[in-house]
């Protein structure tokens, strides 16, 4: 058989194994290496809620999908070209993600009777049982080979077995012609300080995996994926959504000149934002790991009152707990950024899976008339801009702002053309200026006639003493139960939020004609999938909402140009319900999925085609 090297436009690889097998690391390394090689990429970790679920069981399978290509990579890919399955359970739960042409690499040592039984196979041929027997099967005794490779390493058996993932990564690197240097560098850096003895064995396992794949002749063809051609020149890096969120907030802190204060309680999948901010004390960020979610937001509100950029980060269940304090921030008219990295709900729901089902909670989840701006990030790197804008709106309009992210965005990563902070706008909070005249009192809720934004007097300034709080007040800051005053204040707080639309970018038709038969509508993390689907169908139009409350001011104008509007989202129809309430003059179609998983481009294509 003649060995061929085939150039591919893109390739999807899914690494799957026991939650202790190191598949998240293997996948991220493959991704980072490809990014540095110059590919476009998108990743999607799919892991269980348990840290170490029962060994070898389907519930304990941890997966990491990486999509690498030369162009048009907007999603982690629907189905994979290579599935790496470290045990029978991993094969069982991931076989359904294999393309008809996929290659499947398994560790045959794990496919003993015990392993097969744990995964719940009823026959002794797992491939036929899963109907993937016609795929290119690469059955390799990875465990035995790794132990053999490292027999002189001086490591004990347990430590040697931990290098299995490097052996596997070596095989994948051979198949996709990836240079190993980046991984060498990574290993050297990772183990240099604490475990220098692990550097050589990991490198050896990686190398032996690569050479094994080259020698066995079971791999007829290898592939190359050329670096992306039409990429904008500049310096790039890989970034996850949670990291980008944290950095966007730091950027807003720098631009506003206000120190960042983050009060948060650990919760999946938002914790990484708090962890990231905790690192960056050199930028003046203060983080407080609170005793609960409520203290998280209340300390942030206190920090805002004292003149910091107050932030709290959470996921759905935590947002539920913060509800009353959100109302306080609305009433006290203080800036605050609340980040909700959404996960499957209700209640504890699917903590490690993605969903867009907190939108109603973000829009309406408070007592009283309690409007709050809501904005949504649309890709991992876009979390940076979204977080920056959330803080800018909060600080300039004196209001809490809800930033919706998603587990898919927070944990996912992509290459990012590093921006320059000089390209970002200034942030100018409405601070009080000068001094008051003798006998004059500061009126904390007197509003700018244009924006309806009150002034911000930070404690410590002479003469501006005033009281804020949850009780209704007059413009002067005096408690009042006067009926007319209450209605005035309720309407003014709502109008203040509505007028933010004047500062927001207009809604743009991203693909397709400005007027036509069908407009596809999305928001949040479904952006990449919808973009790919719309491009594949062709000749339909697509808009994506980053700003949800208030809606872009030209929304009705854009909608009016289309015969049909199809709203696609990962819930039962929360955004479409909101649109029906806000813009009832239009008819809306909807396409929804509530499986804790992102859309597949394929299913979106089918849904869109149905409406043409």
């Amino acid at each position, binding site marked *: 058989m003649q060995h061929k090297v085939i150039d591919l436009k893109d390739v999807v690889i899914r690494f799957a194994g026991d939650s202790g097998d190191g598949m998240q690391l293997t996948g991220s390394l493959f991704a*980072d290496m490809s*990014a540095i090689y*110059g590919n476009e990429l998108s990743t999607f970790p799919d892991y269980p809620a348990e840290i170490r679920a029962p060994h070898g069981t389907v519930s304990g399978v941890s997966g990491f999908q990486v999509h690498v290509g030369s162009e048009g990579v907007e999603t982690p890919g629907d189905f994979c070209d290579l599935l790496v399955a470290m045990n029978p359970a991993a094969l069982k739960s991931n076989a359904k993600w294999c393309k008809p042409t996929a290659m499947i690499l398994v560790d045959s040592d794990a496919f003993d009777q015990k392993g097969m039984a744990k995964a719940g196979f009823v026959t002794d041929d797992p491939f036929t049982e899963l109907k993937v027997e016609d795929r290119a099967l690469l059955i390799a005794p990875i465990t035995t080979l790794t132990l053999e490779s490292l027999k002189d390493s001086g490591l004990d058996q347990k430590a040697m077995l931990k290098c299995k993932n490097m052996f596997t990564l070596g095989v994948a690197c051979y198949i996709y012609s990836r240079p190993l240097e980046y991984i060498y560098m990574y290993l050297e850096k990772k183990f240099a300080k604490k475990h220098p003895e692990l550097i050589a064995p990991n490198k050896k396992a990686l190398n032996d995996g690569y050479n094994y794949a080259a020698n066995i002749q079971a791999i007829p063809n290898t592939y190359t994926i050329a670096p*992306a051609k039409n990429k*904008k*020149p*500049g*310096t*790039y*890096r890989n970034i996850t959504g949670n990291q980008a969120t944290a*950095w966007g907030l*730091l*950027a807003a802190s*720098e631009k506003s000149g206000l120190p960042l*204060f983050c*009060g948060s309680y650990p919760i999946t999948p938002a914790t990484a934002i708090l962890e990231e901010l905790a690192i*960056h*004390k*050199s*930028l003046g960020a*203060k983080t*407080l790991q*609170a*005793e*609960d979610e*409520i*203290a998280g937001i*209340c*300390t942030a*509100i*206190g*920090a805002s*009152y*004292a003149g*910091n950029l*107050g932030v709290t980060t959470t996921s759905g269940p935590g947002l539920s707990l913060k509800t*009353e*304090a959100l*109302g*306080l921030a609305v009433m*006290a008219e203080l800036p605050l950024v609340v980040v909700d990295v959404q996960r499957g709900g209700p209640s504890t729901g699917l903590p490690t899976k993605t969903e867009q089902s907190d939108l109603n909670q973000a829009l309406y989840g408070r007592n009283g008339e309690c409007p709050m701006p809501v904005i949504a990030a649309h890709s991992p790197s876009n979390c940076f801009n979204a977080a920056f804008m959330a803080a800018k709106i909060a600080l300039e309009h004196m209001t809490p702002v809800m930033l919706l992210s998603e587990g898919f965005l927070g944990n996912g990563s992509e290459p990012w*053309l*590093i*921006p*320059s*902070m000089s390209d970002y706008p200034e942030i100018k909070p409405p601070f009080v200026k000068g001094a008051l005249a003798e006998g004059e009192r500061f009126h904390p809720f007197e509003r700018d006639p244009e924006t309806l934004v009150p002034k911000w007097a*930070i*404690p*410590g*300034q*002479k003469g*501006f*003493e*005033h*009281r*804020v*709080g*949850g*009780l209704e007040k007059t413009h002067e800051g005096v*408690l009042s139960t006067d009926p007319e005053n209450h209605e005035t204040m309720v309407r003014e707080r709502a109008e203040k939020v509505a007028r933010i639309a004047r500062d927001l970018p207009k809604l743009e038709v991203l693909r397709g004609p400005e007027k036509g038969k069908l407009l596809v509508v999305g928001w949040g993390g479904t952006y990449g999938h919808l973009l790919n689907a719309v491009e594949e169908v062709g000749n339909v139009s697509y808009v994506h909402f980053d700003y949800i409350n208030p809606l872009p001011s030209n929304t009705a104008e854009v909608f009016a140009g289309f015969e049909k509007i199809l709203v696609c989202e990962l819930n039962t129809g929360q955004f479409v319900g909101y649109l029906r309430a806000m813009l009832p003059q239009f008819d809306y179609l909807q396409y929804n999925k509530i499986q804790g998983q992102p859309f597949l481009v394929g299913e979106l294509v089918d849904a869109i085609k149905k409406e043409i």
Partner: protein
Amino acid sequence: MANLTFKDFKSDQEVRWCPGCGDHAVLAALQRALPKVSQALGYEKERYVVVSGIGCSSRLPYYMDTYGFHSIHGRATAVSTGIKVANPNLTVWQACGDGDALAIGGNHFIHAIRRNIDINIILFNNQIYGLTKGQYSPTSKFGAITKTSPYGTVEHPFNPGSLVLGAKGTFFARSLDVELALNEEVMTAAALHDGCSVMEMLTNCVIFNDGAHKSISDPEVRADRTIVLRQGEKMVFGKNSDKGLVFDGRKIRAVHIGEGGYTLDDILVHDAHADNIGLQMALADMKGPDYPVALGVIRDVRDITYDDGVRDQVKEVMAKSKIHSVDELLHSGSTWEVK
């Protein structure tokens, strides 16, 4: 610095507590204590922030002409924490009630104490929910008959002192609404304490729990049923100063001086600065009929404060780190060029 007087701390808002409510006295004491504190520490008025939760006592910020934040039920301690960490130059005073701080806000309360954040918490303890019109609170006596316990409560109350000291609090003081001078004294001591100061103010609710502390506050019996503890002074009490506290090798006991072989030499000397919390805990726990209720500063020790710790760590990392701007942050770690 302007010479501040109590008038500088009085706001133009009408005080709306019931006539005879114990809160009036606490407010007056605070308005009198702060000028003295300002004088001693060189503080300007704009430095003060008064925070509260929800309840009768939580109206206090409106009556103080300082920066003020009337927050939500139970959360005052969390708001105060955020204010102090964000801006350590501010001096934070907090007013909260027994239901507010110990029931709905119990979690924040113990964690602020554990962290030793430099805030001053006035805990108004009238053993009842007043603003909701008379339900039992976490400090209501066992068996208390209230609107939600018509047959008497069947739950044990918290003793705020043991709660604070159990959480290794660095400052705890107790006073009675009617003890005006003592209130001012403990408030001043709390202000001078660097760390989380809790002052339990035993207050009367004339409407829903009248006589809450009558058994110790009544002028007839007060001297015999309370003891005012002062640093370095003998623990003597009683109308005729003829009673005192001794340690009998196992526990403290209240004795008559000159009876049972006890002389003034046997009487304990109060040390609020002792790091060992054992005796202070026993003092905070004392109650009738066997013991007088301890008033005054029971514990006052120094330890690192959370706000200092946070600030110092930021400084330290700033000095060490190579990243001093967001641009530098964005370019840190692995990057690559596309030409």
